[in-house]
């Protein structure tokens, strides 16, 4: 009985039913699609990682202090293979950096010599044939392109035999370095995936046995590549899989001993990525809740309208003897059936979208990055279940009030609707009954959620669970969105007036009617405004942050690098003392770097030396990081970014030669309460080592140096930096009992330089990297190259934001559509009357469109203002703390997109909803209503 009544109702209200099913279907589909995509990527992660870092599990090689740098293949392979039964294959390789020469060019490349039956990774032959047995070389695509080498050409390869490092010494044992040089024909040009890490762009592949012969390494290899059972990764838990591989690695180590290095790159990255997936899933779940919230509001509205329309019927049912529970069940059943269809189709659609849209898209993106991989779409029960539960919980919550309203239908609605709302006999019992005040209870809960979020974040961050941390953080963001929505709702009214005022210039007569209807229909306006506003806040917030970030890219890059060219040294060693073995000498600037004519005025900067600093009498003390400089930074640092609160840029010149001068940050000056010309004492290395300095500059901001600012807290926590001369620096870092080091010692960790006018900075970046990247272990950054990278990243962020906005507004559009539909439906009498007095179809349609646009556009604008305000506030707070100047910017992609979507939804919603009713004659509409 209930079901047939419900189904009959659906037939009566097709559009409303379709709207509810569609909105549920789309939101469920989007959430299932996103969850399934994350699940698919998570499950395919092993495959993806294998493609990017090599399709093997453990790589065994000798340590650099082992007397014999090569592995004895047969014996060691046997030991490794039997170390753990989960090891399935062991292959020897010779992997090394070699010098490659061809067509007059020279570069460093990675040689990979492997046995023919090793089938690790995919090799895509672009030209030629993969014939390596007679000394043939398969050259990597990029290398061949760089050298202009084709199949049939001959290349020269120089292999330097590794020299073991002496224990406790940074240098190699033995004086001379042995080298083997050979010429080999290129038989193939290839693209590899999973043979070796993807970032190895320059490389060549050769036959293992042939290379052994060429190098005279009988039964020797540099590396043993080990594979483990694939089933280890199929359990689905990345962390468990990584730990199991580590267990196997330990077993191998126990059998081989400490003379070997064990590289578990795949397990390592897999382990690190597991937390990222948890965070991503938390983000999707939070977004899902938001989307379902909007859908819930929509369903609540439509079901409530249904109940109001059915009021008389329900009253008749009550007269006929129906219990209140029966009416309640009818409404709940109606919603449950809608839920079954909507969620069911949604899950199906989500799966299809994942399989036929997301997976191919991800595969194509990976292919662009040179990773060829086939991803298997995964939609498990555990992926679908949260979305389904969330959808039904939202449905239940949305339907509970309409269902309760239905159950309270008075019989008087059937007898005399005009007086039904007055107090009846059946209301008396309710009036006498003492009930708990649920409104206060709900407000209590709302307030507690805010407190719970604040406390929860503290607890969770101390426990260190990334998924919970992300969930709570995103819940806080959601809370902020809700709060902003409610606060900025007040703006919708003036914005409505503004929108109508503007439209009145285009269509004054239609606006006359729309204006009154919009400004005097409080209830429906609030609902539609909330729907749109909530959907607009988050995209606008993120878009504003992105826009500010885009507008400030140049400032950020300039502030970060400090000068047109920045060179940083990276070292092989992490142990204190040993790291300096790779640092540069000041003479590097005058000799090697000077060979590059485009580089001008290079200044060397020493590593940071931590020292205690105090005022002249030691009343106030602090710690800081001391930096020595080789030349005048004022020549190369971006001048417009420098702010001196004491002294000026000439201090940067003075500091080079004045060994008693120091430049400090404004924050430190305030902490120590010293001013320009004041005296400070610094403690150097060793006992009783103290030196006085005169403050010649106090800096609020120095581009390229993060330790100069006005934040006292940073200075108090020792985050402040100070500049002194090189001589003074040597003096400070040397124990007075020891002799001062030579001026030209390995002491520089960073070089800042200018460039000649008209220099191609990106090319210079490449040239410097090619020249010194490996040999001097440096990383070169130029402002232009950094800007290019940053802009590319920003473009990707914008695409992501647009996708987010599209998803966010898809549900909102349904909401707009539904509310407009219900609004128009409930105003049939008015429409009939308007037609009767002579309003034409197009005028009525125009009027309804203007009303819709005014209601939704004002809410969208309020959402944009809310999101943008928050975005500006966040950016301002972030910048003020880090002493960065900020250019305020307005987003020009997401926000217009939001406006266009809202206006389109309004127009389509109004036209679609009105099209039937306005076709009727006035008298027919009046009869209907």
């Amino acid at each position, binding site marked *: 009985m209930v079901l047939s009544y419900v189904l009959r109702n659906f037939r009566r209200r097709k559009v409303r039913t379709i709207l509810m099913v569609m909105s549920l279907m789309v939101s469920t589909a989007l959430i299932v699609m996103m969850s399934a995509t994350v699940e698919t990527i998570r499950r395919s992660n092993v495959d993806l990682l294998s493609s990017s870092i090599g399709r093997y599990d453990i790589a065994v090689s000798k340590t650099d202090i082992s007397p014999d740098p090569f592995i004895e293949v047969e014996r060691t392979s046997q030991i490794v293979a039997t170390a753990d039964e989960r090891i399935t294959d062991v292959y020897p390789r010779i992997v090394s950096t070699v010098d490659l020469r061809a067509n007059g060019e020279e570069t460093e490349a990675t040689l990979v010599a492997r046995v023919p039956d090793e089938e690790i990774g995919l090799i895509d032959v672009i030209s030629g044939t993969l014939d390596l047995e007679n000394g043939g070389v398969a050259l990597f695509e990029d290398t061949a392109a760089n050298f202009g080498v084709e199949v049939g050409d001959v290349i020269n390869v120089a292999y330097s035999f590794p020299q073991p490092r002496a224990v406790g010494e940074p240098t190699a044992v033995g004086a001379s370095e042995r080298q083997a040089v050979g010429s080999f024909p290129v038989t193939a040009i290839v693209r590899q995936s999973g043979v070796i890490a993807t970032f190895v762009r320059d490389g060549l592949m050769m036959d293992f046995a042939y290379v052994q012969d060429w190098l005279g390494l009988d039964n020797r290899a540099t590396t043993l590549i080990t594979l483990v059972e694939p089933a280890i990764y199929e359990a689905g838990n990345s962390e468990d899989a990584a730990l199991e591989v580590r267990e196997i690695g330990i077993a191998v180590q126990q059998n081989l001993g400490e003379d070997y290095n064990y590289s578990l790159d795949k397990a390592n990255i897999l382990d690190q990525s597991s937390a990222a997936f948890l965070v991503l899933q938390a983000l999707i779940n939070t977004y899902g809740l938001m989307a379902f919230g909007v859908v819930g509001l929509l369903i609540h509205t439509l079901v409530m309208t249904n109940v109001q329309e059915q009021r008389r019927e329900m009253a008749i049912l009550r007269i006929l003897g129906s219990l209140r529970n029966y009416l309640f069940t009818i409404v709940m059943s109606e919603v449950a059936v809608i839920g079954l269809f909507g969620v069911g189709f949604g899950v199906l659609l989500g799966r299809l979208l994942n399989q036929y849209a997301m997976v191919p898209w991800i595969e194509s993106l990976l292919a662009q990055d040179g990773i060829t991989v086939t991803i298997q779409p995964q939609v498990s029960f555990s992926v679908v279940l949260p979305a389904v539960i969330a959808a039904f919980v939202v449905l239940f919550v949305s339907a509970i009030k309409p269902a309760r309203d239905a159950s309270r239908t008075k019989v008087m609605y059937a007898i005399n609707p005009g007086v039904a709302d007055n107090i009846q006999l059946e209301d008396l019992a309710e009036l006498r009954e003492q009930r708990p005040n649920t409104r206060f209870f709900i407000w209590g809960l709302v307030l507690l959620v805010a407190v719970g979020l604040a406390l929860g974040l503290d607890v969770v961050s101390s426990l260190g669970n990334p998924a919970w941390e992300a969930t709570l953080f995103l819940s806080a963001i959601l809370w902020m969105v809700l709060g902003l929505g409610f606060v900025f709702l007040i703006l919708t009214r003036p914005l409505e007036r503004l929108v109508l005022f503007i439209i009145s210039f285009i269509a004054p007569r239609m606006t006359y*009617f729309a204006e*009154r209807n919009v400004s*005097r229909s409080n209830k429906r306006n609030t609902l539609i405004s909330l729907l749109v506003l909530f959907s607009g806040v988050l995209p606008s917030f993120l878009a504003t942050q992105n826009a500010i970030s885009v507008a400030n890219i140049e400032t950020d890059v300039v502030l970060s690098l400090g000068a047109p060219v920045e060179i940083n040294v990276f070292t092989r060693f992490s142990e204190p003392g040993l790291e300096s073995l790779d640092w540069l000498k000041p003479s590097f600037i005058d000799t090697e770097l000077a060979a590059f004519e485009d580089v001008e005025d290079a200044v060397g900067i020493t590593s940071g030396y931590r020292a205690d600093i105090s005022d002249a009498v030691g009343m106030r003390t602090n710690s800081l990081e001391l930096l020595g400089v080789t030349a005048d930074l004022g020549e190369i640092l971006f001048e417009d970014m420098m702010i001196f609160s004491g002294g000026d840029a000439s201090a940067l010149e003075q500091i080079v030669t004045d060994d008693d001068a120091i430049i400090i940050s404004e924050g430190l000056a305030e902490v120590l309460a010293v001013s320009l010309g004041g005296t400070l004492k610094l403690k150097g290395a060793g006992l009783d080592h103290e030196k006085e300095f005169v403050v010649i500059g106090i800096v609020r901001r120095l581009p390229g140096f993060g330790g100069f600012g006005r934040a006292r807290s940073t200075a108090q926590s020792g985050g402040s930096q100070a500049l002194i001369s090189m001589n003074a620096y040597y003096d400070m870092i040397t124990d007075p009992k020891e002799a001062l080091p030579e001026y030209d010692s390995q002491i520089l960790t960073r070089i800042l330089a200018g460039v000649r006018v008209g220099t191609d900075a990106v090319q210079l970046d490449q040239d410097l990297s090619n020249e010194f990247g490996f040999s001097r272990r440096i990383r070169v950054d130029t402002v232009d190259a950094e800007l290019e990278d940053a802009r590319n990243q920003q473009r990707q962020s914008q695409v992501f934001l647009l996708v987010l906005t599209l998803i966010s507004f898809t549900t909102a559009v349904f909401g707009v559509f539904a509310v407009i539909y219900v609004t128009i439906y409930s105003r049939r009498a008015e429409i009939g009357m308007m037609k009767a*007095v*002579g309003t034409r179809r197009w*005028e009525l349609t125009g009027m309804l469109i203007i009303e819709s646009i005014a209601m939704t556009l004002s809410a969208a604008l309020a959402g944009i203002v809310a999101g943008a305000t928050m975005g500006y506030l966040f950016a301002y707070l972030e910048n003020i703390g880090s002493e960065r100047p900020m250019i305020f910017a307005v987003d020009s992609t997401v926000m217009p997109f939001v406006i266009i979507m809202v206006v389109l939804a309004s127009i389509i919603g109004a036209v679609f909803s009105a099209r039937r009713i306005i076709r009727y*004659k006035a*008298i027919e509409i*009046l009869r209907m209503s």
Partner: protein
Amino acid sequence: MSDVNEPIIVVDNIHKSYLMGKDAVPALRGVSLDISPGEFVCLMGPSGSGKTTLLNIIGGLDEPSRGHIAIDGDNLVSLSEDKLALLRLNKIGFVFQNYNLLANFTALENVEAPMVLSRSYGRRERRKRAQELLDKVGLGDRSHHYPSELSGGQQQRVAIARALANDPPILIGDEMTGDLDSETGFAIMRLIKQLNEDGMTIVFVTHDPRMSKFAGTVVNLQDGKLLNTERQ
């Protein structure tokens, strides 16, 4: 405006049937009627006699299945929907039983609405005229009240003022006093009578014989046919 002697409303052999399921149910069966300018006509008859159908056809709200109807020389049957709307806007004023006022509009704005649609008055003139019309129906002091703040009789007065907004020659009323108590009903009819005396053609439907006494002509309908015409 037509000649005084020419009928302003010509109803010629009007037939109208409604489809009820698969069957056509006749509502009017060959009704013919001429109404002169300034005439005060009451359509009477029992329920189902076709009086409201005839009124709706005269008002251009419905179209006949067969026959001709002309208002002030315009043949309604041949008019497009837009032209029919313009005719209603400029030549006919409507007063409904349930008032049909715009809920979000004040009394003044409800009266203004047809003038906004017709574009025949400027903004100030429109306001002034709306206020005058409200004064005329005795609601000058209620001009800024919303319909929900007015009694049934007051709402019907607003509806009458709205019907007069574009100064139409014809006023059509469907059970104008049906929802009102006798006293208010008589007051409304006195107002309508006054309008008629000012030269307006009135056609209205009622089943209350007391109200029909206000009319100069009573047209009796039965089973969709014209039974007789009484001059009072």
